[in-house]
């Protein structure tokens, strides 16, 4: 009797142990598919709390060494950088990850790894804009774009990272002049999502919008008749492609093992799974993100937009300059 009881207890404990707990910010259907696939493949149960990254990081911080979370999965490199700074993550080493994830897309010491890439590009109204006249992010501050520019508010973390990249390349002063110039060229006070910028573009409000690639993908593949109409009216442009230019700004979704992870091995297995070609194909085909794994090619839709030169800045620098970027936005009145 005691034996049975003990074995049940042991079974229970081992069942308990065979899991991995994730705090995630990502809210895409691709992730749910992948969580399931991982469990099918390894038998490791995936437990998830999905919430805003900054808030869930606060929870992680307060839970300290007792946290049940093994992994932190989020979008935007600034948050990963911040999680490392706050001491919420631990370094891990994996030959596979170091081989397939390019150097600039992961933390030097292995605190976090990029899982997917997204580019922040320009889209334009095909009726009113000749793409030959488009060139760089910097050019958007030019007076000739007065009343033409559409983008989200400064609370969009993607705008914050874009500005942080300009700070990193050109310094704070120039970045501030740029932000101020773009702000004075706004077609309207920033409102709505990236998709809404494209909708406005198609409606003839403004001519050029700054948006993330996967939102363009979603729009093109939307079931909604009105968004299909929008998709037909917009063109895609990768800025800063010239010979002496730095390339289009990219950002990542990334993941790191928490400092006090209780299932570290499972956690590493999970990261390796997300970066495997099997998972990377799901990211790129379901959510239209660019794979971070250099050996996996993007989905057909993304390929149809052509290949482009990426800004190869080490992404942690964007995290460093994130707060500076927010301050500049506040100062120039880019609300």
């Amino acid at each position, binding site marked *: 009797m005691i034996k049975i009881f003990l074995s049940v207890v042991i079974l229970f404990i081992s069942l308990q142990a065979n899991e991995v707990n994730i705090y995630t910010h990502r809210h895409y259907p691709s992730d749910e598919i992948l969580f399931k696939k991982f469990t099918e493949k390894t038998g490791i149960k995936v437990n998830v709390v999905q919430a*805003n990254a*900054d808030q869930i990081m606060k929870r992680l911080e307060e*839970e300290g060494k*007792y946290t049940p979370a093994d992994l932190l999965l989020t979008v935007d490199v600034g948050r990963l950088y911040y999680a490392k700074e706050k001491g919420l993550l631990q370094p891990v080493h994996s030959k596979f990850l170091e081989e397939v994830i390019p150097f600039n897309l992961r933390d030097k010491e292995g605190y976090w790894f990029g899982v997917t890439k997204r580019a922040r590009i320009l889209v334009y109204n095909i009726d009113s804009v000749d793409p030959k006249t488009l060139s760089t992010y910097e050019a958007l501050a030019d007076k000739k774009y007065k009343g033409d520019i559409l983008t989200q508010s400064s609370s969009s973390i993607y705008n914050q990272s874009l500005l942080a990249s300009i700070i990193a390349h050109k310094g704070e002063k120039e970045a501030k002049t740029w932000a101020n110039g773009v702000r004075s060229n706004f077609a309207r006070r920033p409102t709505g999502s990236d998709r809404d910028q494209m*909708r406005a573009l198609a409606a003839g409000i403004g001519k050029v919008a700054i948006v993330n690639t996967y939102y363009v993908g979603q729009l093109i593949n939307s079931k909604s008749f009105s968004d299909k109409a929008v998709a037909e009216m917009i063109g895609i442009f990768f800025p800063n492609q010239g010979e002496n230019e730095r390339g289009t700004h990219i950002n990542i979704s990334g993941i790191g093992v928490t400092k006090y992870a209780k299932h570290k091995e499972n956690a590493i297995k999970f990261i390796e799974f997300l970066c495997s070609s099997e998972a990377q194909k799901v990211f790129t085909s379901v959510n239209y993100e660019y794979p971070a794994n250099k050996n996996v090619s993007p989905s057909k839709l993304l390929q149809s937009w052509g290949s482009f030169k990426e800004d190869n800045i080490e992404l942690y620098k964007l995290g460093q300059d994130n707060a500076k970027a927010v301050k500049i936005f506040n100062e120039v009145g880019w609300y």
Partner: protein
Amino acid sequence: MINRWSFFNYVLTFIIVLPIAFVINHALGSETQTLIHLKETILSEYISSTLILVFAVGFFTLILGVGTAYLTTFYQFKFVGFFVFALALPFAIPTYIMGYIYSDIFGYFNHFHIFLRSMGIKEYFNVLNIYSVILIMSLALYPYVYLLVKASFEKSKSALLNPALSLGSSRKRVFLKIILPLSRPAIVGSLALVMMETISEYGITEYYNIKTLTPAIFNTWFGLHDSKSATYLAVMAMLMVLIVLSIEKYNRGKASYKIENSNAEVEKQRLKGYKLYLTYFFLSLPVIFGFLIPLIWIGVYSYEYAAKLLDDKFLTILTNSFTTSILTAFIIMVLAFFVAYTSRIFPTVINRYLSKILSLGFTMPGAVIAIGIIMLFTDIDKWLIENYITKTLFLSGSFFTLLFAYIVRFFAIGVNTMDSSFERISIDLNKASRSLGYSYFKTLFKVELPLMKNALFFGFILVFMSTIKELPLTLVLRPFNYDTLATKTYILANAQMLHETSIYALGIIVISLIPLTIIILKRHV
């Protein structure tokens, strides 16, 4: 000496306020640097848009709420029963969902503009602005005023209308001179709820990019990575609300709103002619724009997407939402009833102001309250672990924590409903019962409870529906793999998969309808 009733009150207040105390403590470490930066740049714009939004939404909810309550209480016309029910329905649609729906309907390539172009009008009406936000929030929040004021009107109409009418006063005069002033506690109480929710609303202000204090708080927290200065702003906002409410309470401190209860039937006036049509028009507006149009939108897309999303998980999510909401509403209404009753029978200064302190959880953005809750429970957990009582986090991330958070958050609704309603019942009734030898406890059940039934039910509905819609606390505090209708709706909407949210939004509406239908049908109000 402290009596048992007051003691219970103090203990309860202490527990509910604990997380707020953690928030305040957190705010004390704020960086003056950050605050100076905010003051020099965005703060004035944020404060002015907050004030504009609060006053405009307050104004419209007042007109809509009091107007609809008045017409459905004092007049008799066809379908009045339907309107009594339907006017509460806009509350079942989360504000930010209403915001998304209207931005979708008014999209350039969508229904409204296609219709315009078919009529030859080429103009584009952009709805992503503060005026839309004011209208949408008013539609989403006026049911607070409608329900609480209606409960108050119901109580005074028979006691006052009959004698006054028999003395020859006109109905209009009775209403303006007697009933309306007597309903001040209900009007103020419900408006306070509207304003607090307006300040702490995040979803729609973020999407429409209206810079109120809540986005400023998040700008500081998520952007400048300074959660301390962010909570500092939240605490300041909270103090402002607290001061305004206390002034109001002080102002009406000496006035008495008590009336004797009477169950005599009042003959409702029949409406005829253009007045009837005007009434239909006025009552239909909020029902159509606040409920019917969003419902049709939600219905159409639910039908389109239902098959894909209706799996076994959906039932679990439905159950989660229902269980938490019913538990929260029940616990809050019972506790709020005791709190209000105590300050009624022992009207000490402390007891009278406790209800304001108990409302604090509603004056801050949910995400900020969440910080306090997380800190409180991780501290308790750490103590438990260090004393070998538990081995892992026991309370943090548990269902219990979530429930506690809801209670802290929505206690304001319960206590405001109870307070404003108790103010209307003469304490003499209580004294009479006591002089007949009944205990306070027995008096509570025999005298007050029956008189408070309406308010209790309406308060219950409001808390229940608020909990179903609750988002920021649920998102960050929930246990692993725990979803509610609200979190599902939000996550999909946030991924800009708007049409996919509809089935979950429909779930919120259907579940909200359950208590509403039961109570309205039973009460014949």
